[in-house]
């Protein structure tokens, strides 16, 4: 297991732990901080990195769309071998991996050229991550990319997550979804929901139901579904190839 894989597993484990005991512990890596504070903190990064409209590569690669990007993949930027290898191994920039990288770049990617001592405060890192997220995916995306997730979505009663849905009922209910979403998983204008992990589906639908997520159509559709119906849909779409 590589160092960065271990770090990510640790970070994800922390997020899961917080999901079931939301009141405990320090700031989770997947919690999104305050973007305005992040903009101020980003001044430190500006020596090497650009982000925002017309941002270009400088000493470091530009950071537009960094969330969900494979490490070492910005075109025309000359990366260190270490970062290219990490990308080839599957390192993708997410809230968790960015958090680990910001805390201590060299502990996540061996021989990275990012000459930065690290940001020790988890809170500061969450602010910088929030700032960077403004230049990546938006929370209204469905299904959400991992980097757009917030801990708020996961504050769901474990009893709801434990409901075993009836996929037959889900298949009937899916008719409502398939007016817009494509069963085959095409992702154009309206995102794909086919094959989505059951828990992610349930969490997202309840976030719409509670009006945490913004999309009005989805709020309307989820708003009238019972917990069992959501579980049924999740069971059906998870099994759809």
């Amino acid at each position: 297991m590589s160092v960065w894989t271990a770090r990510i597993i640790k970070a994800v484990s922390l997020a899961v732990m917080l999901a079931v005991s939301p009141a405990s512990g320090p700031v989770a890596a997947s919690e999104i901080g305050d973007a305005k504070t992040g903009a101020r903190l980003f001044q430190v990064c500006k020596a090497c990195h650009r982000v925002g409209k017309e941002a270009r590569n400088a000493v470091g690669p530009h950071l537009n769309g960094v969330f969900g990007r494979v490490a070492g993949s910005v075109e025309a930027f000359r990366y260190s071998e270490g970062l290219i290898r990490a990308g080839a191994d599957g390192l993708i920039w997410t809230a968790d991996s960015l958090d680990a990288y910001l805390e201590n770049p060299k502990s996540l990617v061996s021989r990275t050229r990012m000459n930065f001592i690290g940001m020790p405060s988890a809170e500061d890192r969450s602010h910088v991550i929030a700032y960077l997220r403004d230049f990546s995916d938006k929370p209204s995306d469905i299904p959400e990319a991992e980097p757009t997730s917030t801990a708020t979505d996961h504050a769901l009663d474990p009893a709801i997550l434990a409901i075993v849905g009836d996929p037959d009922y889900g298949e009937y209910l899916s008719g409502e979804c398939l007016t817009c979403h494509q069963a085959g998983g095409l992702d154009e204008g309206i995102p794909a929901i086919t094959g989505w992990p059951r828990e992610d589906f349930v969490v997202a639908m309840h976030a719409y139901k509670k009006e945490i997520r913004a999309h009005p159509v989805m709020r309307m559709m989820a708003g009238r579904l019972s917990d069992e119906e959501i579980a049924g849909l999740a069971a059906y779409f998870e099994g759809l190839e």
Partner: protein
Amino acid sequence: MSLSRRSILKGAATTAALSVAPMIMGASHGKPKVVVVGGGAGGATVARYLAKDSKGALDVTLIEPTRTYFSCFFSNLYLGGFRTLESLGHTYGKLASEYGINVVHDWAVGVDRDKKTVSLAGGASLPYDRLVLSPGIDFVDGSVPGWDLSHQNRMPHAYKGGSQTELLKAQVEAMRPGGVFAMVAPPNPYRCPPGPYERVSMVAHMLKENNPKAKILIFDPKKKFSKQGLFQAGWENSYPGMIDWLDSEFTGALEEVRPHSMELVVGGEVTKADVVNVIPAMKAGRIAELAAITNDKGWAPVVPATLQSREDENIHVLGDSAHQGDMPKSGFSANSQAKVAANAIRGALTGSKVFPAKFANTCWSLIGTNNGVKVGAAYEATAEKIAKTSGFISQNGEDAALRKQTYEESIGWYAGISKDMFG
């Protein structure tokens, strides 16, 4: 003929009771037969869901006169130059080859409710255990004085997809510089409430690029219309001074149109136009009338939970033709109703589980480039009607990114519903 107490109870029966019921076969012929008339958003969807979900237990026949279905929804985007006509055309090949639906390209010209048969223009007579009518709309004769179907090439309605839309676009493109496009808007209820106003937006978009001094006049019998605030703000921003919406309270009633001289007489005044788009008052598609299941307003009343005709429990009516309550007449609504009806029909004919009815609708409209807006609602079946339970609408002042996203979402919806209809 009215619904029996037994059939109503059956519609509300528990899933457990139905799931153990024996297979119910057609009275005189092997597998139960379902005949669907109309291959649009309601008909194609119900046929596909019946065939797909019954896994061969039902014999499904779809009667549709055209070999290529051109959707009326999104036809305005073709007028505006945002879609090709070809991209709105769909064929029935997959429904036949992948789902085993017997697709018959013919006109349904009669229904014998006692014998439970549908007669076709080609001479055939098809028996059914359940009949689904989803014929869309037809026009009310005489609703626009001076206009009838024989004038549709002079003054197109373009309110059924295909060649009429093509004709209207050609006429707008051929308008003289600074000419007048006039629309006679329909009274309620009609297919696609925001449709006429999206059309005006798309015509304005085309004229702004090619004929910027042209004018658009809308003669409207209604005092208000769907998404009015959004459209009017959009017109002011994108096409200032080009569009005048004239409701009859302001101008007086439309007295007549004169197709041969391209004139409209409104409130005693004669207006000359270069293109006149006449959208008459509407009623259920003719076959519903022939089946004698329409009311005095020309629409077919239905039982909300099953879409069964109030006049005949063996007939279901979907989409634009149905008089069902609060749902607008839209492709989305027809598609939504089709799934509820398919579930109810399958339950009645094969004993499969019947789940509670849920309905939804969303209507997207394009005002200009990347400027999409939407309105939608959720519905449930009550004893009296399909009743609205919640809804939403886009807001004025939304940022450009959200409007673009809404437009892109509508493109995704078109792809999704097309797949849902035709496989």
